[in-house]
């Protein structure tokens, strides 16, 4: 665990103020990311095997070596990000596949060289260096050059040039970030000024490497033919009035029903061909308000299929009614009835005297617990929660109202109670094809703790939440919660503009909404088709005879 804490402190040096509860799951998942990224995909299973002992036996020497590699990777990425930002381009942290062999090559090479000082690295013959090291050196020099270009002052240039090579992997903060006050501060200010999206200075400074995360935006201006129902729904999404994958999917489909009913096919066109062109601006309006959830994506894909398949000869009203009927069926079969099946299945796993631990709030988990209580099971619930959303409070209110004995605690206290729990039940935003569960930030931490203490982790998830993509960490795709006061309630009660200044220019808040729990930490996934291991998720559509999810 020493390595994990090390990276954590290092990250917090770059991001001066990160709400601690939120930073943990991210750093928890990011080392495993880089582990997985370093290997080519055919070595994936091997990597997972290696990742496993790293969590269970923290003092083993192997993970340490890998950690430094991970840090190197991190540094590279950061420098690349730095460069891209200097050019004024959007920062994209994507790892090209052709770099992976080089990384593996470096893994074979001696890793002790990483600790060599900059001067040593310079004097070393180019041939002796591994490919990865050469690449790194190049990157560093390029970064230094770029930094020197933006700050013409001789002192600043000298500093960054001397500082850059000195900075070999152990300290991942690159030279430019190490001297925020002397020379590099100027570049930062320039960068902030150059940012086109007009974000606050705090965002520009601390969260630049997270800039690809979806952030809550001011309500998008309504342009074009946006239906009022969609405009209102977009606002609900942007203001976090409707949250949760199920709720958002249902709300979207219901709004689309209204849109379809109000739709009139223009002359010389057919519904099956034209309706989608009418719907797509509506969809993009919703996406502009808040990034689309996986559930919405799946539902919309299904809707598109239905639209394109609708009969041309059908009278328009009939076709519209048929589509609405299809939407209703989708909601009923994939969400409502699926939840009922999950309620029964998961409820049967709860025994009298059990202590169920759950994290945040999931509509499915809530239904499962309520149903089990109705069935006369005697159990108690530990609700773990964390800022900024504090969804657990709402769950607590619902559960305690029906009389379930509850304990409420925040994420840091989870270590003290995890031994009490007999089962962990959590919900999911999505499950990826590799079995990783994308869920509210903090779930990974809970699952890791449970795994450590051999407490079974059960994920309740409808099959329509399956994503066909593979996601390896919570860094590639994530979302940021609206910048609210960390001590304030959520949803924020004061205006956004008031809150952004509370931190001052030296404080940036980072609240990722989701994290990724690896399949290895999940005991079972409860779906409406049964209880399955997370690794066999991708076989479900096939087993059901569907081509799509």
């Amino acid at each position, binding site marked *: 665990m020493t390595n994990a804490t090390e990276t954590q402190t290092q990250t917090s040096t770059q991001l001066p103020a990160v709400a601690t509860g939120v930073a943990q799951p991210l750093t928890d998942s990011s080392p495993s990311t880089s582990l997985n990224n370093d290997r080519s995909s055919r070595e994936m299973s091997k990597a997972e095997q290696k990742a496993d002992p790293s969590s269970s036996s923290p003092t083993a020497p192997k993970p340490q070596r890998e950690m430094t590699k991970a840090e190197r990777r991190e540094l590279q990425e950061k420098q690349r990000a730095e460069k891209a930002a200097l050019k004024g381009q959007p920062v994209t942290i994507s790892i090209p596949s052709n770099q992976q062999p080089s990384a593996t090559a470096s893994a074979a090479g001696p890793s002790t060289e990483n600790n060599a000082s900059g001067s040593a690295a310079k004097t070393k013959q180019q041939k002796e260096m591994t490919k990865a090291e050469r690449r790194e050196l190049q990157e560093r020099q390029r970064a230094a050059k770029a930094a020197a270009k933006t700050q013409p002052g001789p002192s600043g240039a000298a500093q960054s040039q001397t500082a850059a090579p000195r900075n070999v992997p152990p300290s991942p903060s690159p030279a430019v970030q190490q001297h925020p006050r002397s020379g590099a501060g100027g570049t930062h200010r320039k960068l902030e000024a150059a940012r086109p999206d007009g974000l606050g200075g705090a965002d520009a400074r601390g969260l630049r490497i997270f800039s690809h995360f979806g952030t809550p935006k001011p*309500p998008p*201006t*309504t342009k074009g*033919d*946006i*239906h*009022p129902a969609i*405009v*209102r*729904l977009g*606002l*609900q999404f942007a*203001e*976090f*009035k*409707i*949250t*949760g994958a*199920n*709720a*958002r999917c*249902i*709300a979207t489909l*219901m709004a689309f*029903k*209204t*849109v379809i*009913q*109000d*739709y*009139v096919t*223009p*002359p*010389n066109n057919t519904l099956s061909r034209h309706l989608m062109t*009418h719907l797509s601006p509506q969809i993009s309006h919703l996406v502009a308000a808040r990034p689309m959830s996986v559930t919405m994506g799946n539902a919309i894909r299904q809707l598109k299929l239905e639209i394109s398949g609708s009969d041309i000869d059908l009278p328009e009203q009939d076709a519209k*009614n048929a589509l*609405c009927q299809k*939407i*209703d*069926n989708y*909601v*009923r079969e994939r*969400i*409502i009835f699926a939840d009922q099946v999950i309620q029964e299945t998961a409820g049967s796993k709860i025994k009298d005297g059990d202590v169920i631990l759950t994290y*945040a*709030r*999931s*509509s499915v988990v809530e239904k499962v617990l309520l149903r089990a209580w109705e069935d006369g099971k005697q159990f108690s619930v530990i609700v773990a929660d964390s800022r900024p*959303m504090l*969804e657990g409070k*709402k*769950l607590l*209110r*619902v559960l305690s*109202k029906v009389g379930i004995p509850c304990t409420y605690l925040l994420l840091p206290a989870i270590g003290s109670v995890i031994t009490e729990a007999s089962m962990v039940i959590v919900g999911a935003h999505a499950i990826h094809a590799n079995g990783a569960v994308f869920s509210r930030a903090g779930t990974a931490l809970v699952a890791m703790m449970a795994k450590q203490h051999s407490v079974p982790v059960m994920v309740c998830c409808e099959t329509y939440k399956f994503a066909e993509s593979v996601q390896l960490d919570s860094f590639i795709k994530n979302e940021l919660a609206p910048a609210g006061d960390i001590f304030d309630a*959520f*949803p924020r*009660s004061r205006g956004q503009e008031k809150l952004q200044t509370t931190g001052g220019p030296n404080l940036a808040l980072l609240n990722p909404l989701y994290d990724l729990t690896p399949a290895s930490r999940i005991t079972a996934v409860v779906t409406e088709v049964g209880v399955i291991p997370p690794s066999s998720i991708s076989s479900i559509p096939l087993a059901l005879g569907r081509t799509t999810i």
Partner: protein
Amino acid sequence: MNFEVAPTESVTRREFLAVILAGFGNELLPLTGDHGDEPCPKALLSVADKPMLDFPLSWLEQSGIEDVLLICPSSHKHAISHYVQSSSASFTSLNIDIQTYDESQEMSTGTCSILRHFSSRIQEDFVIMPCDFIPPPSLPLSTILNKFRTDAMSDGSIATTCWFENSKLDKGAFPEEWGPPPTPTTIVWDDTSGTLLYVDTLDDQDRNGQDFELRMSLLTRYPRARLSKKLQDSHVYVCKRSVLDVLQQKRHLDSLKEDFFPWLCKVQYQATKRGKYGHTLGVVSNSASHSMSMKHSTLYTDVPKARAFLDVRSHASSPAPQSEIGLSQPPSPTGSDDDESITVSLRIGLHVHRADSGYAVRTNNLQAYLEANRRFLSETSYVLPSDPTKRSLIDHKAAISADSAVGDFTRVEERASIKKSVIGKHCVIGKMAKIVGCVLLDHCVISDGARLEGCLLGGNTKVGTKSELKGCVTQAGYEVEEHANYRNEKLDVSDWNEGHQRSEDSEEEGEDDGDEEDDD
């Protein structure tokens, strides 16, 4: 063969209808008094060289609302429709429907009855606006609309209004004869949720100006309610269509601002009112499909406190009036057992606009009108017109300060001095005339050597040579005779003699004035 391309019709339903109420402007008398047979509509009085109506219209255009129902007195229809059509180039996206009602300046109809009368034309959610609200650029209408959209969907709020903080008026800046400044209204609101809770009305003030009653039920629900006297109603109300249905039931209410909305605030927390009107108000928001998604939302709980109040659900058995929105929504996919609706708050949202974030004003009285004009002067600086024909009208020896505005085709003679004033179009300013802090509407004629200070002159006012006016307001077409001297008076055309007698009673100067008037 028909190659004509069919026009692509907008397939979306309009969301809001804007209702602009343009009244007579009795508070602005004598500026709004008739000029002969021609009326001077309040909506067309200019504020900083634009008619007042321009501000709400461009505000609407900015927000994306396209349909406007403009309601004005029938005598004003001609002038207003002429203005709307002539300036239609600037409002291309607006469909303005001008409707009239019959009333005289003396017997004005209440805003409630006007709205009741036109309720058949309003089929969707609507925005009521006055013609005299001048919004600051920092407050786009979409801010208020978005608050309404969010609140109406998430917890069933029925209306959203906007109140703004009064900017402080200097004591003594305006003559007392112009009438007392509008008495501030006390309101109680909840800042966290932005809810208007209580508006102190005039009726209550009659009983005891200092006291007013707050229900305990209000304070239980909103323990951190705030009270202020500083805020003024902008008369911008975004309402659900169902509000009109309730308005139809409450026949005896007269004014929207003073009767209806203060009453409507109380519905949310008074159990009997809620029971009586709750199902009329809350019917649309309560669509079962929305409640289903709300029930799955992780940040939503059906607040147990709200259950103490009469639930809308209890009225589910009574036949719900089928609204347009209700019809187009297909039934819920789930069975009736899952159909229970969520509690609606029936609250009135409130957007508070602070004075430090932009100057907002309602130019519905003389003080505010003059103040608004002065404000706009301080933002612009006057430059001589570049057009040579217009340029030639202004004598090069005339002194026009930078904080003034002079309309097109106005002639300014030799050594005239204009400071901090708005001069309308086609005016004539004579030699040696001195104008300080005034607003002159179009076609005014100021003869040589006249001195004006802090005056509001209606259109076509003629001021005789060497007369002195201070703090006066004139009706359109008024003629001030030569060598006259008026202070702090409202000068009407119709009752010259009455005005003369009044001034005789009140001031010594009245005698002089009277003599000169007799000469005329």
